[in-house]
């Protein structure tokens, strides 16, 4: 994608990841070079075991690459310490997971406030931000429900609200629709597309080609290498509430 340097939010240069499990060394990623500009919506696809999650964890500052440079918002995070990475996750990134990863004993609102607590935001401001984020994902009437009292789609929307509340530069998702039926998955994609429309950069892993077609660009990974990187030509636009997406 053509873009000037300032618009690049994520830049991976020669990223490699080697897992040492016992005597065995597993090369999960090798020489990954990717740039993602502000406002893009990128799907990462590939077969099982190809390294998608590994790449996502590096992108999400949850894990450090074994080699290479990762510039996030212009700063090299590949060699940052634990606490600095935590700060990057807190301020720069919103992460959504396949299994939602909500705290089971806390209400939707408390879950959404979580990143704001670690940012040092005052209680009242936090409540406001959480309320706004939950309203943005259409869950104003479920603020005080615990995750167990919510459907899978609702839980994922709480997770998205948690990611949004921190007003991140980039929204990252590892199979965010993986646990949802196709209708609910489409609803989630509609929400993510709307957020992207509003300017949020999105990078998400999916092995579902239909979900990938909701994105603007698809990066294919196989065996730890990037084997394809192309713009989506027949993009699907998800309609909230509609069972079937329509072609753009």
């Amino acid at each position: 994608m053509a873009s000037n340097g300032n618009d690049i939010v994520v830049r991976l240069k020669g990223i490699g990841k080697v897992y040492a499990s016992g005597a065995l060394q597993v090369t999960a990623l090798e020489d990954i070079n990717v740039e993602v500009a502000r406002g893009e919506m990128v799907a990462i696809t590939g077969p099982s075991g190809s390294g998608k999650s590994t790449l996502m964890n590096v992108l999400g500052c949850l894990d450090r690459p074994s080699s290479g440079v990762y510039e996030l918002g212009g700063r090299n995070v590949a060699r940052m310490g634990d606490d600095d990475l935590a700060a990057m996750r807190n301020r720069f990134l919103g992460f959504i997971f396949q299994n939602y990863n909500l705290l089971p004993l806390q209400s939707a609102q408390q879950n959404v406030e979580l990143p704001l607590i670690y940012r040092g935001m005052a209680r009242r401001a936090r409540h406001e931000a959480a309320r706004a984020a939950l309203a943005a994902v259409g869950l104003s009437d479920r603020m005080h429900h615990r995750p167990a009292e919510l459907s899978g789609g609702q839980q994922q929307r709480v997770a998205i609200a948690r990611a949004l509340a921190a007003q991140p530069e980039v929204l990252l998702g590892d199979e965010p629709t993986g646990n949802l039926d196709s209708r609910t998955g489409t609803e989630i994609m509609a929400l993510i597309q709307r957020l992207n429309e509003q300017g949020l950069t999105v990078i998400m892993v999916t092995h579902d080609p239909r979900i990938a077609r909701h994105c603007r660009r698809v990066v294919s990974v196989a065996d730890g290498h990037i084997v394809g990187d192309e713009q989506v030509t027949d993009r699907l636009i998800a309609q909230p509430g509609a069972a079937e997406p329509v072609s753009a």
Partner: protein
Amino acid sequence: MNVAEAFRLAWGGILANKLRSFLTALGVIIGVGAVIALVAVGQGTTQAITQRLSALGSNLIIVFGAPNKGVRLTAADAANAQKQIPYLTASMPVVSGGVTVAWQAQSYATTLNGVTPNYPQMRNAPVADGSFFTAQDVQNRSLVVVLGQTVVQQLQMTGNPVGQTVSVNGYPAQVVGVQAAIGGSTGGQNQDDIVLMPYTAAQRILGTAYVNQLYFQVGNGNDAGIATAWLQALFDHQFGRSQSVNVLSQDQLLSTVASTTATFTLLLGAVAGVSLLVGGIGIMNIMLVSVIERTREIGIRKAVGARRWHLLAQFLFESATLSCLGGLIGIAAGVFGARAIAQSGSYHAVVTSGSVILAFAFAAVVGIVFGLWPAMQASRLDPIVALRHE
């Protein structure tokens, strides 16, 4: 995140599993309660003994003979010593032995003390009814007695005992007075379980020409040390050997007793302290389990940006809050327990603010020290590993 926030998080963790939190704190509750109650018993006992000793009368020096070594004291020794040693302001020979007193159909075994009219003043033991016998009675070997309260009760004497006649080992003796109650029995013989008589008459009843102890009084407490040394020298000279008699001043007695009871208190406190330590290990155990159980929670918190110290603070506050809460409940339990022990009557118990503060501080330190390791475990978890944890 500030301290209040860390505390709120910790409190949430405690409330999430109330029963387990209570059981975790129970070790500290029992530990703190035991420290406070047992130290209270130790201190109460010390206080009671000290009071009893102080009631002996001030500035008292007691000389004990050693009959088995041929060192036998006489009443003349008391008068002689007072004449020779200027610091002594009063003296009194004491002869004592077990006797049976009888009144009407009742009889009772007690201790007979043969003394002089100096007794009430030197022993701080006033007469409640009637009067003490006189120097004339001593001279005349009069069979007159002053009874302790316990003896009056045991003989079930009806009406005013003064003026009645009791028998002491078969000798008829007229009751001239009844002692005021001194009370208690802790750490020594019951001071009310006694019959007082002129030592001359007591010698006759007990069949001896000697006395057991000589009591002396110094005018000024500061002179007790020098008077003690002087008495020792005097009797060592008289009996021709060193350490012939045993000279004890009240000060010495007090310090001996004080060091004994301090050891006793320390021992009790140490035993209770061990249980507090065990309580601390219980906290560590549960917190370690909790960190493992909550690995996923820790992973989620880290994923959304919690730093190491956020998790360190959360878990440390949790263990510290548990132990401090346990400490507070333990204080209540300890004070309550000490009161119950005191009311049961067999022990004295005095809760001091010192032991309360000490026990609570110890509990807090235990919570922090034993919470530190689990909290560090939590803070060091790798977010990826933690998130994958099932």
